[in-house]
């Protein structure tokens, strides 16, 4: 290489490096500028406003795409009330996880992470980012600045156990679920009520055998009355949503770890699980379980539902699948938990009523105390009502009924059909899990169609009744909400993935008959070879910690 060339190359490189460093310096300057000038913020411990001088924070939350957060009237109103203002960064819900990880990785953090949910701000995230000091520990601040949440934690000791990381810190506040559907582990199974009526079924099946007989009748007796044998007694998409219910027939609540008393075991290698596979294979082989179960999409399942071809199916409400009206949906009963030869006492999975990862404060936050005070109001019935339904005059107004009692009724132009659309535009409490005390049975906080109308409509009454009869008496939380230590997480990361894949694949193979059930021992051996012992050990340790925590 000629000398002139070398000189030229070197000078170009120097130039490039200079340009880069120049940019670097600039970035540093701007980032320090933003943290400067935040002196001590004085926070009131009771009442509103929370701060005397206007406080401006940044908040990151998923957007469901109905409205911009800065335009939401509830948030605007609450900002006036509290004197805490926000600059919102709300990526679309579909990509929120990516954006949140990017924010953590680039340290470009908002002051508050709001309504992220357990799938985006996972338990593992809390442990990792908490230990790195990116999330602020809240347990010391809670008694003083979040008295309402503190009260809830005292009333229900499982809350504190379930949100305290192994290092003893609380990094994130949950949604606390109460009232109506909070018991649901996931949307229940529903029977097609019209078919039951047609076949003259008075009493729902109570055992696995009776259930099988009913499915058989669905298949053969043409309950939809179109003269064609196009009935599908039981359908699902990859069994994801019916599995927890169907496994419960055999005493299992999840196809992962579960605690039997204080002993943790891995369900997919238990004898009950074998019974479950055997039963499901029988249903599949006789055409009682949809042949398309492992290949169809959710849309295709729903299309079958609205064509009146399904007998038993899972959905949040039955009419989401059948396309019927709520008045008709009252005739579609909820599935009754079943017993079997291996499970003499009916049991179904129960929701822990806590949904984690919904409110975290990052190290950038100039006033964690004010932030906590800001969210704490939502952990009261009144505050939750304010958050979800807004202040008076938006979608509801005060009225007096015949007995002279104060009730809340829909504002003019608002009714049960369009109230959700209106809500979607004015509050973030639409389609997201928020840090709040969600759901209540207190009729003072229910909006009526007119002052003398009942507080809840017939459909809600029906669903509540069904839940009380068919889920509450049988429910058991499959496994408590635990945290794994970083080292524990690392020791089972690979195993967890392998197990999950292998178990779901094998499940499909056993049920469709690709693998005969005589291969069960081989299957168990393969799983044992995947280091399932360590896996169970880790969860046992985490369970013991949860159990011992106060």
């Amino acid at each position, binding site marked *: 290489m000629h000398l002139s*060339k070398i000189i030229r*190359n070197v000078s170009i490189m120097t130039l490039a490096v200079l340009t880069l460093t120049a940019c*670097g310096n*600039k*970035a540093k300057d701007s980032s320090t500028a933003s943290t400067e000038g935040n002196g001590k913020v004085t926070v009131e411990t009771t009442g509103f406003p929370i701060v005397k001088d206007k406080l401006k924070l940044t908040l990151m939350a998923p*957007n*469901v*795409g109905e409205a*911009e957060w800065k335009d939401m009237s509830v948030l605007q109103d609450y900002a006036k009330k509290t004197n805490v203002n926000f600059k919102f*960064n*709300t*990526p*679309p*819900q*579909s*990509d929120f996880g*990516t*954006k949140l990880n*990017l924010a953590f*990785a*680039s340290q*470009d953090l908002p002051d508050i992470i709001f309504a992220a949910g357990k*799938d985006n701000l996972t338990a593992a995230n809390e442990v990792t980012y908490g230990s790195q000091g990116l999330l602020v520990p809240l347990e010391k601040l809670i008694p003083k600045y979040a008295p309402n949440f503190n009260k809830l934690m005292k009333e229900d000791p499982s809350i504190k156990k379930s949100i305290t990381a192994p290092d003893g810190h609380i990094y994130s506040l949950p*949604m606390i*679920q109460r009232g*109506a*559907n*909070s018991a*649901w*582990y*996931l*949307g229940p199974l529903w029977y097609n009520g019209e078919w039951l009526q047609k076949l003259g079924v008075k009493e729902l099946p109570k055992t696995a055998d009776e259930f099988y007989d009913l499915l058989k009748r669905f298949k053969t007796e043409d309950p939809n009355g179109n003269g064609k044998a196009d009935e599908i007694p039981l359908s699902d*998409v990859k069994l*994801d*949503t019916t599995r927890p219910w169907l496994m419960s027939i055999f005493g299992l609540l999840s196809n992962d770890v579960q605690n039997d008393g204080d002993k943790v075991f891995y369900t997919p290698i238990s004898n009950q699980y074998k019974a479950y596979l055997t039963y499901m294979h029988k249903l599949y082989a006789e055409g009682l379980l949809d042949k398309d179960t492992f290949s169809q*999409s*959710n*849309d*295709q399942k729903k*299309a*079958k539902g609205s*064509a009146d071809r399904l007998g038993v199916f899972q*959905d*949040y*409400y039955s009419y*989401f699948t059948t396309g019927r009206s709520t008045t008709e949906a009252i005739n579609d009963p909820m599935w009754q938990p079943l017993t079997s030869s291996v499970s003499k006492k009916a049991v179904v999975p129960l*929701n*822990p*009523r*806590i*949904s984690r990862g919904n409110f975290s404060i990052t190290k950038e936050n100039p006033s964690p105390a004010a932030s906590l005070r800001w969210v704490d109001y939502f952990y009261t019935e009144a505050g939750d009502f304010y958050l*979800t339904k807004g202040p008076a005059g938006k979608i509801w107004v005060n009225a007096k009924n015949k007995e002279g009692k104060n009730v809340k009724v829909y504002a003019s132009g608002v009714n049960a059909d369009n109230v*959700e659309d209106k*809500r*979607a535009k004015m509050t973030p409490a*639409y*389609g*997201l*899990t928020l840090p709040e005390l*969600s759901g209540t049975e207190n009729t003072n906080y229910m909006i009526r169609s007119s002052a003398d109308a009942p507080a809840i409509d017939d459909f809600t009454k029906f669903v509540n009744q069904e839940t009380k009869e068919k889920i509450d008496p049988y429910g058991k939380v499959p496994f408590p909400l635990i945290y794994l230590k970083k080292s524990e997480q690392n020791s089972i990361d690979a195993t967890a993935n392998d197990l999950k894949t292998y178990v779901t694949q094998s499940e499909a193979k056993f049920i469709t008959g690709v693998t005969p059930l005589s291969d069960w021992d081989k299957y168990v051996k393969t799983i044992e070879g995947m280091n399932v012992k360590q896996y169970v050990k880790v969860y046992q340790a985490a369970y013991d910690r949860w159990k011992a925590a106060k």
Partner: protein
Amino acid sequence: MTNTNHLIKDTRADRIFKIVLDIFIILAVVIVLYPLIYIISASISDPQLVNSGEMWLLPKGVTWKGYEVILKYKDIWRGYGMTIFYTFAGTAISLILTIPCAYALSRPDFSGKKWFTTFMLITMFLNGGLIPTYLLVRALGMVNTVWAILLPGAVSVYNIIVTRSFFQSSVPWEMQEAAKIDGASDFQIFFRIVLPLSAPIIAVMALFYGVGIWNSYFSALVYLQNKALYPLQMVLRQILVLQDLQQSAATGGGVTASAAEAAYNKSALAAIIKYGVMIVSSLPVIIVYPFLQRFFVKGVLIGSLKG
């Protein structure tokens, strides 16, 4: 095709060959056309019939509701406007950077040629990764501006190489030397000799960059926060992904009635407009393609020969 007037009669083998050829062409046409027709039909059919599989080729239960909703869906049209802007501005920037750069590298009398080419090639195989790139873009103050979509990735090394090879092979160096002897400056050579001879490669590059920008959503996903700047693909992605959310809302534990209801409404909306938006969003590309296609074949082939 087979029964045109020939002076020499086809032999048996010829005829069989042609029949086989016809069959292959028909098969190819069916494979290409079926999904296209399916989506067009699905966009004006009752979503119910589409999902149940009753609609498999021609529209059934014709309804224009999907398009009505799309017409009124402001986000889609705003996204459309932004995408058109990104595509034109982005393509212009990319061409302005790519063509002169490739030309410089194609000149045999450019002494740093090898070094620069190697330097660029390295970036094809190694890059900083998502986070460092994000940090850089942020440090440059481009996050949440249109520049974050236009500038990072404005130049593709692969395209530079293709263009360079085109210049090397189809614009003879001797011709440029001749121009030089006649007194043309380097700029004159570039603008008056090279560019007029390079219509095919410019068209091809415009198409490469244009379609690339039209279809991209990832940089918008990473760099943009302001919804008003979202390109069309980002809006579509939201609509389509939200449909899956309904499924997870039914699966996930402890979903509130409000969340389930919201997801249910969303998925109903997505079902209606899903196929319509696919057509609306790909129509411009489909229309432009045939016009640029004749350049396309020529340009890439010549470029790739010596690539």
